[in-house]
């Protein structure tokens, strides 16, 4: 502990990095008050029980259990009891955790939590129930595929180039057994750290009181048994880039969806740099370099933007644009030049400078991150990933750091491109303007198989 404190002090004074909150303790409540509406939102987070810990042969297990908890609650009448109170129950999973959350009128929160306790601690299911849930999950998967095919294309491209596993989910789902689920659930209930995230118009004492049914149940259980999930941030290694890749999804249409992904490490690394680069390029707002150049100056697109995201444990910058077919060659050629030449583009450095300075001026975009919900989300995120807060924010980022980042990641061999449109046209354009790219052609439907 002493060493940890000393290390934090050294980090703070030497390199300007402040530690995020310390380890999360069991039954810790992260709380923010928001009196604008008579509502309460509570998340019960089972830390360490997320999809990171799945064996490759069990991909989809945590998502299936999430669905099973909800369906079992429905079957035993708990969802109807919650519905009478106007309470929505959600069970979701992330890489690090499984979360059970409720969103309700504050006056009905205490009653709702008692019902949720019954949902969590009285899970009963048969083989048939599991088979039904697997079918529902497969339908959900197919529906989300139909609605948002791009996220499947992206996962596929990242899986092919960086080795993530998520796209195999549907195939693995068939093999999940009741034994897998029971083993997982037994460990889930004994999870070492469960914490709460609460946003409410009620005060914190009242919230802590409301959560007693859950904490008491857990204390009884943990006294008897051990062996639950434990949170850890050890990630598998990711594959190194082997060259620029393009994934072309054939579609007969008059406009083309174009995406450039720039993978930039794994999510436990500091993220202020990619965040700043994404802001400089424009985010998904109608401003920034991409919007100014490709839409206002060249008139090649309607929608354009950049975003900083992560999938599984890989983080990446994503650049999106939607040229018409007849503009697409121009767009693809100019975007490729733009990205390859980012390091020497004076506009980039000008925008980076503006961003550093504008952080001293009040900025609506920055303030949007200060809502009680966003503050709560950020606090929890930093605690989970033990992420440092950069002292001085963007202002402290030097040109040398930006340059090193761009030199490392904005190189052709690190780029993954995804296009949806007429394949022959796109292949012609790529062969003309970027012949070294490894092109793979697929149909969107093939991703389901």
């Amino acid at each position, binding site marked *: 502990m002493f060493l940890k404190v000393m290390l934090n002090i050294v980090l703070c004074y030497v390199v300007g990095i402040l530690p995020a909150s310390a380890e999360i303790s069991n039954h810790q409540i992260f709380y923010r008050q928001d*009196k*604008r509406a008579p509502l309460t939102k509570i998340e019960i987070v089972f830390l360490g029980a997320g999809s990171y810990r799945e064996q490759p042969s069990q991909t989809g297990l945590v998502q299936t259990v999430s669905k099973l908890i909800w369906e079992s609650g429905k079957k035993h009448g708990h969802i109807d009891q919650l519905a009478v109170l106007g309470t929505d129950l959600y069970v979701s999973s992330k890489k690090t955790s499984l979360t059970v959350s409720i969103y309700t009128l504050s006056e009905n929160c205490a009653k709702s939590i008692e019902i949720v306790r019954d949902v969590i601690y009285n899970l009963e299911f048969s083989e048939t129930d599991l088979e039904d849930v697997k079918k529902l999950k497969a339908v959900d998967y197919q529906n989300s595929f139909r609605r948002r095919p791009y996220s499947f294309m992206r996962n596929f491209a990242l899986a092919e180039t960086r080795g993530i596993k998520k796209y195999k989910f549907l195939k693995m789902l068939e093999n999940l057994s009741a034994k897998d689920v029971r083993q997982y659930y037994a460990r889930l209930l004994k999870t070492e750290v469960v914490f709460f995230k609460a946003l409410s118009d009620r005060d914190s004492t009242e919230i802590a009181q409301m959560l007693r049914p859950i904490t008491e149940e857990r204390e009884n259980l943990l006294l008897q048994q051990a062996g639950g999930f434990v949170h850890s941030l050890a990630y598998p290694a990711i594959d190194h880039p082997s060259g620029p890749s393009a994934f072309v999804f054939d579609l007969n249409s008059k406009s083309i969806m174009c995406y450039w992904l720039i993978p930039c490490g794994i999510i436990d690394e500091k993220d202020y740099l990619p965040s700043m680069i994404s802001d400089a390029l424009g985010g998904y707002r109608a401003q920034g370099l991409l919007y100014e150049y490709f839409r206002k100056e060249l008139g090649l697109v*309607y929608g354009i933007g950049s975003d900083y995201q992560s999938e599984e444990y890989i983080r990446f910058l994503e650049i999106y644009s939607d040229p018409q077919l007849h503009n697409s060659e121009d767009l693809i050629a100019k975007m490729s030049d733009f990205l390859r030449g980012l390091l020497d583009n004076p506009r980039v450095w000008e925008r980076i400078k503006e961003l550093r300075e504008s952080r001293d001026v009040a900025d609506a975009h920055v303030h949007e991150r200060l809502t009680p919900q966003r503050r709560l989300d950020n606090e929890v995120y930093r605690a989970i990933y033990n992420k440092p807060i950069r002292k001085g924010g963007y202002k402290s980022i030097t040109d040398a750091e930006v340059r090193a980042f761009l030199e490392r990641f904005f190189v052709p061999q690190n780029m993954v491109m995804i296009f949806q449109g007429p394949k022959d046209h796109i292949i012609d354009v790529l062969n003309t303007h970027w012949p070294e790219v490894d092109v793979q052609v697929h149909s969107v439907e093939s991703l389901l198989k």
Partner: protein
Amino acid sequence: MKKIYAFIFFLVCVLPTSYCPAYQLIGTEVMSKELVAQHYTINSNLDAVIVVDRTIPTFEYHTYYSAGSADEEEGKQGRVHFLEHLISGTGSHEYGKLNQIVIENGGQKSAATSYHVTRFILRFPKDKFDLAVEIDRDRYYDTVINEEVVEKEKKIVLTERSRRRASATRGSLNIFFGLIYGKKNFDGLGTEAFIKQLDPVDLKDYYENFLRRQKRLVVVIGDVDIDHVLTKLDDAYSNEQISGESVIELPDPHYPSYEVLGRRLKRTVKSLSLTRFRKGWYIPNLGHRDYAGLLILERILERSSNSLKSSMVDSGLAKSFSMSVNSYKGFGLISCYAELSHDTSRNKLHTVIDAELEKLKSISEAELNAARNQQLTSMYSAFYNRLSMASSFGRAFASANDPLLYPKLIKDIESIRRDDIPRIINRYLRDYNSITHSLTVPEKKELLPRILSEYRIPVLALAGVGFLMLLGGFIVMLVWGGKKLHRKFS
């Protein structure tokens, strides 16, 4: 006498400097412990709603014109949307400059055109309120509409159109609202040919004589001082001058003719992967107490179990199903939308809808409370989101001319009783009061005659027997012929 002179002197000195602001408070609505909405008139053409919310040090400044794409003439749709691009993108500045000003001042901007409202959104840190009013005023009086900006924006609008046209859901929506508004080729973005021929003179004329003459609402939500907001709006707009005469009165809301009401229409499109089914029932507008009852009904129809949605999806009739209640200019719609396999019988869908509505006529108190509580949760959650709150004020203003109808709806929802539900179903959710439209693929021509496909197994069995007899006969002939040849040559 001295007193009289002194009084006259006082009047002479004071009167010219005394100032009576033109704005007036016309309504207040308490939304929650922290939020209160105040509705003012700034002038005869402009209202304002102000909600002080100091949670974060920024504010939303939205301007709503109460006209949108559905208010445009048939065949000339697209001009409001095009003007939205020009007003939001360029305003009174040279091309690209406005964006720079907004960024430099830590702000954001966007805009959107819907059926009856065109909105312009600004978001700034709290100390930039004067700048927001200045941008809004300059856009209103001096938006630049010249050859250069129109030609540049055409490329962008055509790209946007091309992208939107690719969506089958949007296509189905356009056809459906085309039926409601009685317009062929209904598309808020306009046709490609129409966009290409737009010229600055016509657009400027349309802006001056149509859009600028619509009633407007400014919604300010955030960390602001009400007196300062009112003073700045008063300075900017109290002497508003509109060329020509007064505010344009749009024609009455367009109700569909009886040729369309009650009918089940469909259109075929070759490349669809799923059939799109949409059914809407005419309901009263926001402000009528039944509107709140219909919102509750929508919740019940869409709940996760024992509902119209679960009947549709769990039985496999529909791949997805959703309900919505919306308010338009002078009328409302409760509608359902489903995505189906091409072979799903749409008559069966109607039967399920009718059965579920019949069932709801005997709804229990617990079911009603559940739906009411869920509706209230959903409405209150919008109080965390200034953008969504401001949009709700804007829609209420554009569709029913009273922005405060939006928060008042919460009280209406609390007042709905169990016996309102069967009454509402009987009154509004009737087939003769509805429009149904399906977008599907062309029917495949049957390869086999119908009788063959209906009695497939017996027919196949008969065919099999016939085939075996033929085969047998052929073999007998071969054997007979073989023997005969054998005799001949031996």
